[in-house]
């Protein structure tokens, strides 16, 4: 429909349909008991929410771009990242293929745009 924005996936109806189970699992991580249950048995926890293989593989890989590709929504995925104490610069670096230092430098440089 819309012209795409480079490097950007809008979380629209198509993504929402694709990612429902994945996002529902991530939403559950608002509760500590659920985070612990996930850490105790990741595979069982994913099965409970009915993740498909693409989603399960992206979770296992802790790969944000793959998670987005599998329908993940940034707001819910942040709760998954939080389990591993990843900060937003870790996540930015992973997605852009930069080192964390290079990503931080890019952010700093934006002040001089």
């Amino acid at each position, binding site marked *: 429909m819309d012209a795409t*924005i480079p490097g950007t996936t809008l979380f629209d109806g198509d993504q929402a349909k694709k990612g429902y189970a994945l*996002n529902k699992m991530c939403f559950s991580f608002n509760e500590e008991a659920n985070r612990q249950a996930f850490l105790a048995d990741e595979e069982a926890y994913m099965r409970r929410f009915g993740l498909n293989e693409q989603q399960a593989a992206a979770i296992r890989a802790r790969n944000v*771009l793959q998670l987005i590709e599998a329908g993940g929504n940034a707001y819910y995925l942040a709760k998954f990242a*939080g389990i591993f104490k990843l900060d937003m610069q870790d996540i930015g670096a992973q997605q852009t293929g930069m080192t964390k230092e290079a990503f931080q430098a890019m952010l700093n440089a*934006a002040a001089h745009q």
Partner: protein
Amino acid sequence: MAKIIGGVGTSHIPAIGGAIHKGLQNEPYWKPFFGGFPPIHDWLATARPDVVVMFYNDHGLNFFLDKMPTFAVGAAAQYVSADEGWGIPTQPPVQGCPDLSWQLINTLVEREFDIVSCQEMLIDHACTLPLKLLWPQSGDDWPVRIVPVCINTVQFPLPKASRVYALGKAVGEAVAAWGSDQRVLMVASGGLSHQLDGTRAGHINKGFDLQFMDSLLTNPEWATQFSIHELVEKTGTQGIELLMWLAMRGSLTAAGPSVRKVHSNYHIPISNTATAVMALEV
């Protein structure tokens, strides 16, 4: 009738919560951000708001995709700050103002805004951090009560910028018509430009942000010329949180044709975000 004293827009990056908790406000990384607030604290000490209407976006705490509202209005007696899963500290509960909530709900439905009313609502950092930034000395007793107005930024389609501005106007008119002697502050929590997801993560657009902030003084409807798609392109997938600022600015039109800038500050970056704070007096 109630009195609208003005509005504040502010960023709400989760890491701010940690910095406050650890007392890092004067560290080199944080000072350029926290330094924007003292002149606003002085203004608030004089303006003495009783109630805050908080335009904010939920970050996957209170709303899930099973029931995703476009616009939601809180109508609770108390709002609980809950665990969001990332380890940022929760805040004391915030008292609501059900009388003003229902004044908003009744007015908005009459004006054909199809809102969701929420008699119970968990609030996240986007709702609590502005309070902590504006009233840093508050302990367990916040000095204001709140009415949260939540605007969808999670799932597309998002409401159009013009619709959000119109919502703000209607909220302002509802507050102005509220039969009460309370003093009301409009707060926008969000932005400015940032993008957390995708290979464009780290996108920041200083030029647009500064033009947007200026437009709130000189031409408040300026940003409504853009589609949501254009705004995301310019400001990032989370930069679209500037919708909150538009709603806040729209709400101030009920108090008069123009606003005076009390103070503003803009700093890049905190976390992945271009941060801003701006206080407007009516």
